[in-house]
């Protein structure tokens, strides 16, 4: 049921949506009076023909078209024929049959023919014969009654065979005063395109019906109407009956012929012409009828002021009606084009939906959007699926891309993990903030995607830290997550030293894990920035963007900048990160060959693909970056082939079965995957790439080659300065390099023979190096690698060891129906590694269990049965409500 407000805005309300202008009893009294008037008229026509004929033909009939033009609903509700027709329904003696199809089909044509014959018969017969006219009126009343007795609704007369109906449909289509049908309570659906159901649309619906025959005779009728009117009024007196009908036939043919000619020749919509012909006919009618009406109303003829006054009124009304009708047709077509066929959903949905009725509701402020969350889903998943503007990064709570403000219901979210805590502290928002990717929904919550600023803008100062007051100047080279974390943690421990960050990229800290999205997304850098603009100022950190460090003088404790300036330091933290590693590929560097490491790389790929209208791309490398980049390029519209030289995808993160499941899914997304395959050289012209040659000699045509084969630490600066270098800058357990005042963190640091190349490791190292730089003695014990894949729908998490070594055991559970796969590697009773596919709700707990090397020797049976709740039991930190 629609509301009143909606009905008023609807350009085409049905009678049930229209305003009721009078109570039912008023209408009943009115139509009782009109029936009585009609019977009285019939008696008068027989008893005193001159009065009856004048009242009927010279007063009532000339007025009727004006009523139909202005307030047609008034007539429909008061017409004596309608009253007669509806009496059987009102008094409940109607048979209420459904009219047979042939009747519904042909009755309107019969009505039209009858109308034309009646007009043609006026001068030869009706105008002068009281008996004939009384018979016509009386017969019509009787016919309407019979129709109402037999057929349901108004289908026996008013909506079918009534000779006046075709005229009313034309002129009543754009009423000045709309009056709702008062008879049909309820609608019984008795007639096609029922005028009484929807008066403004009924005639248009006729014209735009899909049956050409159905529309044809309606167009003929209105096309013939001006000819009919003109013929009647210009008929010479004393013409023989045959001549009268012959003359009418000719005028009708000419009038309708001109209509169809205009329709053929003019490029206009159909109701433009029908309305025009209608307006012409009524204007003609009153040109001739005005003196007749003047005679009837004033008793005198030759009253020019009346004639011209009435003509002017009618012509103005007709002109305005014409314009409104034309406009209405445009609206009708606009609406009609939207109104497609019914698109019904199936009942199977209802039962599936019922199962989620009790799921928790999440409200998004300030819009008030209310979403139903799957229990255990993260806020990030929910917001992304709902189409909310939110950025995503690592999906592990370490990058800081997706802070949200929890307005209420904090107790209904999962606990804050240490990783998320560290990120929240770095970002420095208010305590109401959560990282959306970490917060799993267990009950009703209200969130806003704009986090609140902390009242006192500064990082959380670590109170009582015995910082080294001799350290006055700390320089950090590199503005990635390792460098930014180090600078933040120096400030937290040392309130007043100078901190400088030197960075060769032109951007403040951004989400490097999200760069592959820059390939297909349109949001550019804005969405990837991870810190509020004022963060550096708030922390009193000087940031030298777009500035390269050219050299280090370890003896003089100085960093030489590309600008010619130099920065002195007491402690130096190296965090320049790494470049993309490129294996030897013949011809690499040709146009169309790329790596993907920095934001600029992503922009270059996007620009090249668009400029060269690239169709095919090859991504060499089936690791996380390669697969995410492949998906991004696929989203850009290219056909993508992924080459992975080992026999499975993500060889360092997955076992064979998990790799197989992932491959099938990615192939389902449209990626082509070639295992055991790598590029050896490229074939290119001066301007573009043609093909890539593979290790087995095969050539793959391609417009673009992206190599994602790992990282190459940026060690040149350190090497020139004389620091110890192997693959990376060698650091001890305190993350010191071979110079005790110089530390190294992140992708360039080599600790215990290992370069992690992982965001969480850089965060951990940044914090420890910062603490040690200002007087602390923290040791670094390595990072358990946790990997996810940021490809839509993948829900993959891998942590630690993915295959059991000798003496280890593995628990493997697979559910093909749910597309899920779970594996735990257990070493000496402790969890040493895990792989999860399609189990996002378990990812955080399982990753934490791997990092803690949790002892599960007592719970092996539970784990093997698939009950992994023991891994969640030991939540690291409960959030305050």
């Amino acid at each position, binding site marked *: *049921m*629609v*509301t009143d407000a*909606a009905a008023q805005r*609807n*350009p*085409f309300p049905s009678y049930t949506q229209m305003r009721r202008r009078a109570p039912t009893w008023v209408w009943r009294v009115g139509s009782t009076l009109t029936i009585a008037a009609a019977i009285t008229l019939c008696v008068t026509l027989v008893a005193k023909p001159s009065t009856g004929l004048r009242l009927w033909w010279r007063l009532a009939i000339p007025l009727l078209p004006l009523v139909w033009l202005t307030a047609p609903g008034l007539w429909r509700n008061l017409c004596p024929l309608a009253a007669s027709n509806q009496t059987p329904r009102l008094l409940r003696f109607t048979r209420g049959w459904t009219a047979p199809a042939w009747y519904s*089909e042909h009755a309107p044509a019969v009505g039209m023919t009858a109308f034309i014959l009646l007009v043609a018969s006026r001068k030869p017969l009706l105008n002068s014969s009281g008996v004939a006219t009384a018979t016509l009126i009386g017969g019509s009343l009787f016919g309407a009654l019979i129709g109402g007795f037999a057929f349901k609704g108004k289908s026996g007369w008013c909506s079918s065979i009534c000779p006046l109906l075709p005229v009313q449909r034309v002129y009543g289509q754009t009423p000045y005063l709309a009056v709702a049908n008062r008879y049909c309570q*309820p*609608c*019984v*659906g008795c007639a*096609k*395109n*029922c005028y009484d159901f*929807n008066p403004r*649309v009924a005639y*248009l*619906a*006729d014209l*735009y*019906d*899909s*049956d050409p025959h159905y529309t044809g005779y309606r167009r003929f009728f209105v096309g013939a109407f001006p000819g009919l009117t003109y013929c009647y009024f210009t008929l010479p007196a004393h013409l023989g009956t045959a001549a009268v009908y012959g003359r009418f036939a000719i005028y009708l043919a000419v009038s309708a012929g001109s209509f169809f000619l205009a*329709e053929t020749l003019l490029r206009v*919509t*159909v109701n433009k012409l029908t309305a025009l012909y209608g307006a012409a006919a009524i204007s003609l009618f009153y040109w001739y009828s005005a003196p007749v009406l003047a005679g009837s109303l004033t008793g005198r003829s030759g009253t020019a002021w009346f004639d011209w006054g009435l003509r002017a009124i009618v012509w103005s009304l007709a002109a305005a009606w014409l314009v409104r009708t034309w406009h209405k047709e445009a609206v*009708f*077509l*606009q*609406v*009609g084009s*939207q*109104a*497609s*066929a*019914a*698109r*019904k*959903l*199936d009942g*199977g*949905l209802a*039962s599936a*939906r019922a199962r*989620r009725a009790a799921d928790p509701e999440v409200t998004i402020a300030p819009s*008030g*959007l209310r*979403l*139903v969350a*799957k229990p255990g889903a993260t806020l990030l998943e929910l917001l*992304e*699926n*709902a*189409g909310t503007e939110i950025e995503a990064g690592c999906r592990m709570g370490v990058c800081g891309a997706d802070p949200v403000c929890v307005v209420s219901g904090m107790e209904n979210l999962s606990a804050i993990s240490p990783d998320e805590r560290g990120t929240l502290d770095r970002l420095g928002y208010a305590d109401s903030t959560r990282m959306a990717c970490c917060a799993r929904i267990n009950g009703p919550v209200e969130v806003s995607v704009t986090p609140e600023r902390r009242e006192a803008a500064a990082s959380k100062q670590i109170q009582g830290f015995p910082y080294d007051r001799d350290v006055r100047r700390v320089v950090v080279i590199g503005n990635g997550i390792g460098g930014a974390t180090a600078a933040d943690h120096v400030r937290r421990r040392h309130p007043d030293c100078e901190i400088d960050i030197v960075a060769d990229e032109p951007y403040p800290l951004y989400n490097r894990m999200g760069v592959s999205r820059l390939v297909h997304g349109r949001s550019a850098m804005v969405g990837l920035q991870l810190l509020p603009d004022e963060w550096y100022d708030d922390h009193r950190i000087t940031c030298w963007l777009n500035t390269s460090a050219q050299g280090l003088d370890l003896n003089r404790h100085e960093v030489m900048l590309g600008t010619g300036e130099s920065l002195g330091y007491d402690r130096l933290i190296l965090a320049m990160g790494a470049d993309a590693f490129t294996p030897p590929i013949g011809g690499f560097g040709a146009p169309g060959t790329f790596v993907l490491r920095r934001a600029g790389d992503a922009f270059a790929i996007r620009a090249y693909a668009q400029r060269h209208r690239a169709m095919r791309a090859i991504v060499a490398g089936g690791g996380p970056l390669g697969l995410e980049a492949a998906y991004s390029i696929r989203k850009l519209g290219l056909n993508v082939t992924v080459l992975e030289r080992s026999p499975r995808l993500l060889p360092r993160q997955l076992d064979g079965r998990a790799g197989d499941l992932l491959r099938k*899914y990615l*192939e*389902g997304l449209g990626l082509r995957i070639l295992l055991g395959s790598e590029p050896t050289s490229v074939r290119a012209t001066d301007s573009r790439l043609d093909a890539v040659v593979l290790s087995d000699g095969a050539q793959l045509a391609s417009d673009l080659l992206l190599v994602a084969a790992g990282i190459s630490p940026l060690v040149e600066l350190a090497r020139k300065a004389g620091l110890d270098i192997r693959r990376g800058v060698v650091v001890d357990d305190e993350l010191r390099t071979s110079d005790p005042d110089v530390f190294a963190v992140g992708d360039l640091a080599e600790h215990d023979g290992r370069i992690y190349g992982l965001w969480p490791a850089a965060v951990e190292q940044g914090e420890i190096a910062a603490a040690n730089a200002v007087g602390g003695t923290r040791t670094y014990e390595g990072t358990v690698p946790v990997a996810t894949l940021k490809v*839509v*729908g993948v829900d993959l998490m891998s942590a630690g060891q993915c295959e059991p070594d000798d003496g280890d055991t593995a628990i493997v559970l697979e559910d093909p129906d749910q597309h899920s796969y779970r594996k735990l590697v257990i070493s000496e009773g402790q969890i040493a590694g895990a792989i999860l596919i399609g189990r996002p709700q378990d990812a955080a707990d399982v990753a934490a269990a791997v990092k803690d090397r949790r002892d599960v020797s007592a719970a092996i049976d539970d784990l093997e049965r698939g009950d992994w709740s023991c891994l969640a039991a030991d939540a690291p930190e409960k959030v305050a409500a």
Partner: protein
Amino acid sequence: MKLSSGVGAAFFDYGSAVVREPADEFGFLSGRPQDDWAKVLDHTEIRRFSAGEEIISAGDGGRALYLLTEGTLGLRLPSPHVQTLRTIEAPSVIGEVAFLDGGTRSATLLAISDGEVLRLRIESFEALSAREPELGRAILFDLARIVTARLRHTNDMIARAGG
């Protein structure tokens, strides 16, 4: 006799008085088992709304298909002349055009009553069809049937409108 046909058909919904002819209806995933619907639901976001809320705004991007499961929406075009054009009652499929072509929304949908709508964004649909290719194909075919029905309807309208 058909009670309405052609462009005007949408305006003559006589309600429960009339049994619709089956050919007028285009089922979406009709006859699919409940399991399939559960899979679709797993990939959609459920949104509850109150009367007066804007569900889709004309001109917006956001490539997603909506399944109206409860309530009534009013459809508006971004035109100064027209306000609410017609109402859409649950259950219905909405927004298939922008879902298929990635274009902007052509109409605004306002909630006329309280209700609930499911939103299947294109990425979730890709994930769904990567896992359940047959179900994904069925969704596309049914959407194609809906769009084709509309195309026929539009062709018909153009023919009627006289070019």
